[in-house]
């Protein structure tokens, strides 16, 4: 790997003290008043100069949001004070090149360890500063092939017909309370369109962060991968330190056309007071393939179940999910596979680590419809629990509506074995280091699937999180 990647890896992991990730909200161009009313939504829509149909979608979603209930299952969400959240923040105008980005924004990105040189290596860096993308560049090579990689707001402005055709088509606004909220107040996110047969060889990347205290970030992403095309999209997250609880509620919709492949990788490392409630779903057509790589380490509460609807013959879904729950954290993650067509297959691998009183839960769904014969589904969940205060749960639901299927589910729970520790310590390795080695080994299979720089970062992060875990 090049120097720039290593530089990035060195600076990003949370080895910094928490205050170094803290920035004030002074200098925002536009901040809505706390709370949410129909007026707030009209205001957001007007600022963005949106077409009327989008405002109508937002208003309808807002009414649905008011009617829907908080899910009776899952994590405790009572700590969110919806009335005191700000629903829209605009940092600065969009700039064309990195040099034009204001110094204070740049400083934030430097702290996050996004080196400028990285632009030359990676496909295109979209960095989301609060609610809107402030900087984005895409290699002209792919622009020539017709690849579109814009912020969702730009996407709506430049390709309204495409957005209208796909927006809300795989995740309806009334899918759940938080999807409705997102649809009502969405801002930012990515719009990606890969034309027929185009293979994007390097991953497309974005960085999301929340900056202003009490700001909700409601990004909305739409990825369309046309027939036979291929893309890997990487979303990395880190958020600065602030005192009150904040909310992040995203919606990601992906359309995988016949024979296309899409991989979506998330590294979620929000600061530990954020509620992260995300709805992600892909619609996969004939012989298409969707891969979710979902790594959750940060936030106070995460509820996220990336899913796929396998709608075409021979479609494939794959999920690699990893969660690390430390003190005061609840990672409620998993995956949903809905098999609608014959010969479809899904493969879900989940690994979780609970420590210092943290709780990690796997919650998943496999549904095989009556006409979906010759389907295969395999779900494997492994949990590691590091101390007596922690907790781990597995809640899989399997609904099988025909008999020509092979459905398997397996889950195991274990701790770091005394015999394993003894083996390593008898060879002169101290207990802390031995534990780190065992934990890194536990997740090694999944980390290998990440792009190189993220894999390094992941190992460092785990090392950091494990520090002082020897009682």
């Amino acid at each position, binding site marked *: 790997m090049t120097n720039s990647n290593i530089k990035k890896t060195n600076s990003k992991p949370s080895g910094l003290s928490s205050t170094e990730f803290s920035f004030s909200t002074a200098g925002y161009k536009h901040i809505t008043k706390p709370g949410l009313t129909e007026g707030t939504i009209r205001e957001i829509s007007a600022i963005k100069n949106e077409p009327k149909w989008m405002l109508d979608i937002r208003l309808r979603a807002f009414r649905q949001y008011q009617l829907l209930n908080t899910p009776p299952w899952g994590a405790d969400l009572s700590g969110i004070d919806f009335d005191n959240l700000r629903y829209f923040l605009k940092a600065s105008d969009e700039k064309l090149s990195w040099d034009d980005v204001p110094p204070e924004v740049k400083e934030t990105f430097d702290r996050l360890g996004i080196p400028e040189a990285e632009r030359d290596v990676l496909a295109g860096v979209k960095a989301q500063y609060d609610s809107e993308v402030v900087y984005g560049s895409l290699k002209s090579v792919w622009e020539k092939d017709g690849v579109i990689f814009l912020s969702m707001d730009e996407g709506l402005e430049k390709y309204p017909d495409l957005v209208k055709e796909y927006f809300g088509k795989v995740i309806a606004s009334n899918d759940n309370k938080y999807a409705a909220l997102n649809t009502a107040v969405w801002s930012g996110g990515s719009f990606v369109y890969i034309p027929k047969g185009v293979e994007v060889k390097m991953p497309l990347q974005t960085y999301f962060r929340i900056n202003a205290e009490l700001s909700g970030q409601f990004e909305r992403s739409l990825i369309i991968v046309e027939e036979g095309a291929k893309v890997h999209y990487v979303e990395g997250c880190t958020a600065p330190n602030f005192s009150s609880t904040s909310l992040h509620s995203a919606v990601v919709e992906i359309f995988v056309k016949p024979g296309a492949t899409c991989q979506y990788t998330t590294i979620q490392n929000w600061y530990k007071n954020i509620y992260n409630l995300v709805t992600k779903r892909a619609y996969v057509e004939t012989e298409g393939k969707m891969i979710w790589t979902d790594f959750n380490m940060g936030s106070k509460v995460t509820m996220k179940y990336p899913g796929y609807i396998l709608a075409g013959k021979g479609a494939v879904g794959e999920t690699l999910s990893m969660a690390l729950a430390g003190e005061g954290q609840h990672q409620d993650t998993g995956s949903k596979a809905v098999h609608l067509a014959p010969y479809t297959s899904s493969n879900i691998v989940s690994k979780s680590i609970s420590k210092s009183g943290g709780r990690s839960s796997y919650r998943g769904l496999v549904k095989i419809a009556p006409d979906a014969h010759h389907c295969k589904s395999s779900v494997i969940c492994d949990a590691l629990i590091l101390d007596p205060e922690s907790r*781990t749960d597995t*809640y899989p639901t399997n609904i099988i509506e025909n008999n020509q299927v092979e459905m398997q589910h397996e889950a195991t729970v274990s*701790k770091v074995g005394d015999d394993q520790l003894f083996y390593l310590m008898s060879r002169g390795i101290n207990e802390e280091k031995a534990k780190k080695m065992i934990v890194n080994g536990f997740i090694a299979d999944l980390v290998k699937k990440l792009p190189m720089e993220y894999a390094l970062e992941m190992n460092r992060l785990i090392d950091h999180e494990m520090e002082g875990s020897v009682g």
Partner: protein
Amino acid sequence: MKKSTLKPQTVIIDKDTKHVIEQPGHYIFEIIKPGIKVDIFSAIQAHGEETKELNVIIHHKAAKTTAQTTLKAVGFDKSTLIMKAKILIDPDCQQTESFLTERVLLLSKDAHAIAIPDLEILTDDVKCSHAASVTQIPEEQIFYLTSRGISRRTAEDMIVEGFLKMTE
């Protein structure tokens, strides 16, 4: 999902036991004494348009307990099988071992199965796993028997009989 309307039936386990569940229903097994070993077995069948629901909770309330739970079910015709099972390990139940297997065989394409094996673990020093599978009879097994002059129907019956037998 609809809430189960079955009335729970609590079985207190305070000595080594082999328990066979004869009927579908809602059972809570509470293992209350340290060092106990329990085997729980169930085999159910559903025919016609029946819906059969088995809901089992294995609740470890003491340290050093071991449980092995095997739940098998066969669905014929247009039947629906609902198999819920949960392993619950309380805090401070160190050195608990609990294993759960749910195996469902569906013999007709109109038969449905819902398998929900849950784990809730509040102690670290445990060995715990569950596995669930839903399949039909492998065609190779049928072929093996029919090639030896056994009719398809009889072959299926034989395989089902073997499947539902309690294994040691």
